[in-house]
């Protein structure tokens, strides 16, 4: 008859506590210095100058950030201590021979390590609360937040540390696994992105990770923070704001990762039950994880070391899509093999792995060469892919040409503009060979007399998919404007599309949303503006200057006139020359409510308490903008053109 399952053994628990008390004591001392003692000394000197909420804010900030970092660094130490017996064959055999089931040993050791940390954290928070209370600041909510800020990341990081310990039979491998796995996904994503950038013409080069949730330490770092709640009150002359509370930001993510931690703890048990005692001493102690480790190291080495080697030997002066195929494959294969045999040596605990591992090495080399070839010959169709205009929901376009000073960025969505945009994009993609050759063979870039610049586009398709391309060095030629399929002609056609012209003229240059179509702004209210001009004589010397203020109605009239000119196609411009502008400037003031993403709680940083954003813009007025000039004249403003 099997014994009934017990998940706790008091003897093991007490034994662990006795054996690892120096670790707990050191941790406790550090935490006490960080929180209650720091608060005590600080408040002794500054409490009379600080409001209660400011004290709470600072205290929670220390608990949140300090708790997070301490949890990250110390959890692995507690995990290593609690499960150290799994790295010593004698200890493993000794404990496994005892009359206790694996789950009993696992959970008891797990709890002993966790309790060591949590008990100290609770003590530190209670002492901190006592310190604050002694200064007249008591807030049970703050105490709760401090506890959550420390306990939740500890639950995750400790469970993750234990999970790493279960997988290895080498003490020193555990922290390596722990730290690497905490950032592995983001790191690999970055490597894959830079790797793709070597091969793919049009690769966006965007290194912003999208799989950040799989790298908890990075994700939590970006989410955790302390916020202040404000209350507003009228004081006759205006509004006064005061802090009405503190909040722990990112607490949802803390709960999420704590739950993940518990799942990892349960998974750790499952792995522990399948782990063989004789695996103690192995770098990877779980059989099924050994090939994962081997080929994972190989892949990462090929990506990281391979790229480094390629950069050192071949690629320092190359850019995306322009590369040495042979060089890349050689470096990747060499680095991959280094990684493969290094992993094999670690797994087999022997340096004699070359003969036995040649088959795997050959397979790895073949796979890497195949991967490189797939990328080179664009077997995935990445480089040539341009979505159909009908598939596109919206697009963000950014481009600039250095010689002419043209710089444009906008969010666009109308169908005709999308058609013109995709035609221009397609023309650039098809021109890959010439673009790379020109850039490779030209000493001076951009070539004088041509349009040299960059072009980025990011489509949001109706399916929700996002397609991003970036061409960092493109050259267009004025003499090809007559060829409707050329890059110069298609880009110019796009640049002069009515909506694009509108955005160029009166687009709202907002830091958050780039250039926004003014027609999409909610409750756009003009508050005024002015026109000024410095007039010069025939010799170009200063003659006189004037300035005229615009009322809100006049400002709106000017704005409407510019919009009409743009939509009527009278704001055409060249990518090769500067537009002919009025030798003066117009400045219009307006305010609007930014409702870019109200569901996310987004608030424009410059918004006032009513949510209104005040901005100004300076449209370029050219001689062909008849409607605008007529409007200005009707307002008594007669611009003098050079």
């Amino acid at each position, binding site marked *: *008859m*099997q*014994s009934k399952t017990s998940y706790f*053994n008091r003897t093991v628990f007490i*034994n662990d506590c006795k054996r690892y008390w120096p670790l707990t004591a050191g941790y406790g001392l550090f935490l006490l210095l960080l929180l209650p003692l720091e608060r005590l000394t600080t408040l002794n000197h500054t409490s009379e100058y600080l409001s209660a909420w400011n004290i709470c804010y600072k205290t929670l900030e220390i608990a949140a950030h300090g708790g997070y970092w301490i949890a990250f660094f110390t959890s692995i130490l507690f995990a290593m201590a609690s499960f150290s017996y799994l790295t010593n064959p004698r200890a493993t*055999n000794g404990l496994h021979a005892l*009359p206790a089931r694996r789950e009993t040993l696992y959970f008891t050791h797990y709890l002993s390590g966790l309790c060591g940390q949590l008990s100290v954290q609770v003590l530190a928070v209670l002492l901190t609360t006592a310190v604050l209370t002694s200064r007249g600041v008591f807030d049970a909510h703050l105490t709760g937040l401090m506890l959550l800020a420390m306990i939740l990341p500890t639950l995750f990081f400790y469970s993750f540390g234990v999970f790493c310990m279960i997988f290895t039979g080498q003490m020193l491998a555990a922290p390596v696994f722990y730290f690497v796995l905490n950032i592995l996904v983001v790191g690999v994503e970055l490597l894959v992105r830079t790797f793709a950038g070597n091969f793919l013409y049009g690769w966006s080069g965007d290194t912003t990770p999208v799989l950040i949730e799989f790298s908890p330490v990075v994700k939590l770092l970006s989410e955790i923070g302390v916020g202040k709640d404000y209350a507003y009150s009228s004081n006759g002359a205006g509004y006064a704001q005061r802090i009405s509370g503190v909040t722990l930001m990112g607490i949802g993510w803390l709960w999420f990762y704590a739950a993940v931690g518990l799942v990892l703890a349960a998974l750790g048990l499952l792995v522990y039950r399948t782990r*063989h*005692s004789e695996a103690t001493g192995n770098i990877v102690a779980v059989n099924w994880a050994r090939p994962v480790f081997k080929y994972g190291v190989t892949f990462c080495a090929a990506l990281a070391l391979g790229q480094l080697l390629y950069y050192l030997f071949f690629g320092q002066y190359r850019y995306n899509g322009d590369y040495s195929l042979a060089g890349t494959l050689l470096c990747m294969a060499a680095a991959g093999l280094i990684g493969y045999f290094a992993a094999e040596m670690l797994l087999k605990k022997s340096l004699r792995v070359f003969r036995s591992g040649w088959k795997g090495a050959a397979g790895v080399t073949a796979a890497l060469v195949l991967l490189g070839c797939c990328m080179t010959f664009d077997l995935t169709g990445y480089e040539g892919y341009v979505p159909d205009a009908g598939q596109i929901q919206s697009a963000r376009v950014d481009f600039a040409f250095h010689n002419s000073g043209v710089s444009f960025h906008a969010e666009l969505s109308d169908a005709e503009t999308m058609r013109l945009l995709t035609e221009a994009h397609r023309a650039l993609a098809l021109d890959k060979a010439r673009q790379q050759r020109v850039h490779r063979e030209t000493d001076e870039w951009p070539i004088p007399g041509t349009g040299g610049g960059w072009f980025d586009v990011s489509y949001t398709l109706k399916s929700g998919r996002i397609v991003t391309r970036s061409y960092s060095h493109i050259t267009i030629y004025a003499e090809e404007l007559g060829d409707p399929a050329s890059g110069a002609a298609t880009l110019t056609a796009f640049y002069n599309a009515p909506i694009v012209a509108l955005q160029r003229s009166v687009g709202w240059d907002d830091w958050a949303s780039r250039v926004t179509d003014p027609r999409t702004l909610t409750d756009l209210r003009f508050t005024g503006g002015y026109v000024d001009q410095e007039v010069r004589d025939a010799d170009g010397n200063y003659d006189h200057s004037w300035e005229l203020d615009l009322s809100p109605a006049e400002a709106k009239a000017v704005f409407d006139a510019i919009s009409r000119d743009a939509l009527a196609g009278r704001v055409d411009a060249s990518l090769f020359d500067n537009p002919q502008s009025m030798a003066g400037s117009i400045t219009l003031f307006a305010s609007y409510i930014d409702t870019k993403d109200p569901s996310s709680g987004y608030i424009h940083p410059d918004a006032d308490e009513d949510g209104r954003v005040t901005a100004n813009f300076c449209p370029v007025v050219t001689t062909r903008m008849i409607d605008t000039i007529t409007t200005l004249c009707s307002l008594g403003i007669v611009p003098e053109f050079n």
Partner: protein
Amino acid sequence: MIEVRDLVKSFDGFHALAGASVTVPKGAIYGLVGPNGAGKTTLLRHLTGVYRQDAGTVRIDGQDVWENAAVKMRVASIPDDWYYFMQSNLRDMMAFYRGFYPQFDVARYERLKAVFGLDETQAIRRMSKGMQKQAAFWLAMCCMPDCLILDEPVDGLDPVMRRQVWGLIMQDVSERGTTVMVSSHNLRELEDVCDHVGIMNKGTVLLERSLSELQDNTVKIQIVFEGEAPKVEELAVPTQLRVLHESVVGRVHTIIFRGAQSAVEARLATYKPIFMEAVPLTLEEIFIYELGGADYAVKDIVL
């Protein structure tokens, strides 16, 4: 009763146990012998629940050992590399063992102080190898096990302490019916204490019998033939006897047979030898000659 059937265990493709089977009757002292690397320790680690078998069964009193805390509470073991906590002394380890073995006998622990004479407050890591072995025995005996698994148990003990320890074990066997399984290379010592023996080689148990049965079934004969000695193969064939070893000094042939002594003597009498005498065999000789048949003979090497 300990019962191991067709036990298979591999380490990275190496078959440490290849279908080993062992049966230890209740109250027996079973000596497990075999050359280095035969799989003795691996087998014992299965009996203590350290290793999980790839195939086969490991049972004590009909219950599987693996992950069976109830069974393991009745088993105490002294492995070759006994584990103690780095900072601990004997009293710490006693407290630790008490937490796992409900039947731990503190009174016996106190009584055994006089036998072992160790300083309970001294850190175990500071003790000599022999003293650590004594400490392991002290604690294991106090666990009041029904089954005692010993791997090279007296290695490192002085002769007096060896005798003392074996005396304690024999006492437990006779008084409490403890079943003991012991692995050792000290065959002379095993011969004195074991009543059952199993010989292992290359992951299997070649044979297991009671010691008396084993000695009865293996005969060492010194014989002088009248004329030319018959070939060894001829001696064994008709009566299903098996010749394990033969050596000749002058005209005296020393032949070791597997078979009953009476059958061997009857067979050899047909050759009308001038002289024939059965000589008692030691366990060591049985071990050597049995393994000689299993391709593990002592080789004459000229250096």
